[in-house]
């Protein structure tokens, strides 16, 4: 079943059929063979794989816990049966217990490809003789087996009434009866469950597809039609593309939060990305933000961001550069922010003094919070604004 017999046969160069027959005989005697089979399956590494089931289980804490709980459950069941007087702790029980445990380990520990193989195998057994199966002979066999089980069960139960006081008969009888019923109805029962879960999965998938379609329609198709309309305006096209790109990125990374109005940003980094979006959307310029470290917002940090935003908008408006870079570094004692473009630059002495932007929005704003701003620009060589905000360290 797990390819153990085949493996042994290959190893010793015997016919696999012969090994299988020996294994089945061993299994019938005291369950010893089954336990051995399981042990072999668990310990030996499957061809084409790197780890054995045991090492895979042993390296995972959760798997170990599951195994432990399973072992306790099985042993307590055995103990309960023992107390009821159904069975004595014989060698048979021991091997049976070990086999059940082994099955648990195998089921949890097998690799994906082997699991698929196992699933098909159990499926075939359960569906054996169902109406969609191999035809009437299968149905007949299944019915015969279940009737035998049911008869044994009924016989056991009826014997109980004649021999009062023997609880064991009840347990054995009832169990056998249930096994018989399960064998009889398994194909139909499994079919129903499978059908239900298939249906549910199909519904979820349809829902996902609808969401996806809605999103593609709302954002991508809308943007594409806008782009078509703006085809002769390259700056507008670039702006639309950037907007759509950002939108898709957010959607890919975090589809859950998509479309929900986000709260105002609470960190420096989030606010800086807001500036990026705002300026990119309002002006035809690409903004590249690089941030090292992050911190919470407060009035001083907000002032720094306000000055930085002003510098970015200035670059967007006047520099004629295709892009502007923002670099922010948060250190222990200070935050530094650089806004740089490679545009046409300007001569600071020639800026008319009534222009509010640089002096008011940048220089004075920084000074009010104990920081300072430096502007380096040369006609033709771009502009860089450096903003420094010292942080008060509590220690």
């Amino acid at each position, binding site marked *: 079943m797990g390819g153990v017999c085949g493996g042994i046969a290959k190893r010793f160069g015997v016919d696999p059929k012969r090994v299988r027959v020996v294994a089945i005989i061993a299994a019938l005697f005291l369950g010893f063979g089954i336990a051995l089979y399981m042990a072999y399956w668990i310990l030996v590494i499957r061809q084409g794989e790197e780890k054995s089931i045991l090492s895979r289980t042993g390296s995972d804490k959760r798997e170990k816990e599951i195994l432990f709980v399973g072992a306790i459950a099985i042993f307590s069941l055995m103990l309960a049966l023992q107390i009821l007087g159904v069975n004595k702790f014989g060698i048979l029980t021991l091997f049976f217990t070990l086999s059940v445990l082994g099955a648990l380990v195998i089921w949890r520990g097998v690799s994906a490809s082997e699991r698929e193989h196992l699933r098909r195998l159990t499926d075939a057994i359960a569906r054996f003789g169902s109406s969609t199966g191999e035809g009437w002979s299968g149905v007949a066999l299944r019915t015969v087996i279940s009737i035998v089980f049911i008869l044994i069960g009924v016989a056991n139960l009826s014997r109980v009434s004649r021999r009062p006081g023997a609880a064991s008969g009840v347990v054995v009888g009832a169990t056998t009866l249930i096994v018989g019923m399960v064998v009889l109805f398994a194909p139909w029962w499994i079919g129903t469950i499978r059908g239900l879960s298939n249906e549910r999965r199909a519904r979820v998938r349809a829902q996902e597809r609808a969401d996806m379609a809605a999103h593609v329609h709302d954002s991508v198709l809308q943007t594409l039609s806008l782009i078509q309309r703006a085809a002769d305006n390259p700056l507008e096209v670039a702006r639309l593309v950037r907007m759509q790109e950002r939108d898709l990125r957010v959607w890919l990374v975090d589809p859950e939060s998509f479309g929900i109005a986000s709260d105002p940003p609470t960190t420096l980094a989030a606010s800086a990305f807001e500036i990026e979006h705002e300026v990119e959307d309002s002006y035809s310029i690409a903004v*590249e933000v*690089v941030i*090292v470290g992050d911190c919470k917002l407060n009035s001083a940090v907000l002032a720094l961001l306000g000055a930085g935003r002003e510098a970015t908008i200035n670059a967007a408006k006047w520099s004629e550069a295709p892009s502007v*870079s923002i*670099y922010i*570094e948060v250190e222990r004692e200070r935050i530094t922010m*650089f806004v740089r473009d490679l545009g046409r630059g300007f001569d600071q002495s020639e800026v008319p003094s009534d222009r509010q932007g640089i002096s008011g929005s940048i220089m004075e704003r920084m000074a009010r919070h104990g920081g300072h701003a430096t502007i380096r620009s040369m006609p033709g060589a771009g502009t860089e604004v450096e903003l420094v905000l010292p942080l008060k360290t509590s220690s």
Partner: protein
Amino acid sequence: MSDGALPRVFLVDDHALIRSGIRTELGNQVELVGEADEVEAAIEMIIERTPDVVLLDVHMPDGGGRAVLEGVISHQSSVKFLALSVSDAAEDVIAIIRAGARGYVTKNIEGPELIEAIYRIAAGDAVFSSRLAGFVLDAFASQNGEAEVAPPPFDPELDQLTVREREVLRLIARGYAYKEIATELNISIKTVESHVSAVLRKLQLSNRHQLTKWATERRLL
């Protein structure tokens, strides 16, 4: 690459549109020796044709650029890789660099910049985009911030950046070209290049746990 000859470039990307776009941008400034659109074929052809530089898409089916990189490097360690990506996810960037790529640029890079990057990689130097420089500064930050107490560096030689390296990275993050950095710091372009290569080496070899921890924490940017 011998002097005067064009660098021999191999292009790996699963999107035909992107490939043709890059081909147009490269023009006749490099010698394009081949293209591949999937991992297996890429590994085989790169080993066979031994290009100077492989332009490598980070995101591809069957293991992505990293699978190509690992498949080739184990056979042919002389081939150099420049990773190209639309994604700026820190995880991806750090992973591909640590797997052995000598540089990382985003796909919206301008043609001339891409060509410059290829020449730089072919000459054995490293290429950092401003985003990558920011990532590295962040990952190697001198943890004196927050309450978190940094563990002592395991290997001070590998786990810390020098003051000069930090300065160079900062300028890259601010959007400076190598030439501008050289002027700004009063050093030669060669020196700038050697600083960047040193940082690349640290990034690839350092076992600093912050690196991986940091990259997984900042999945999106």
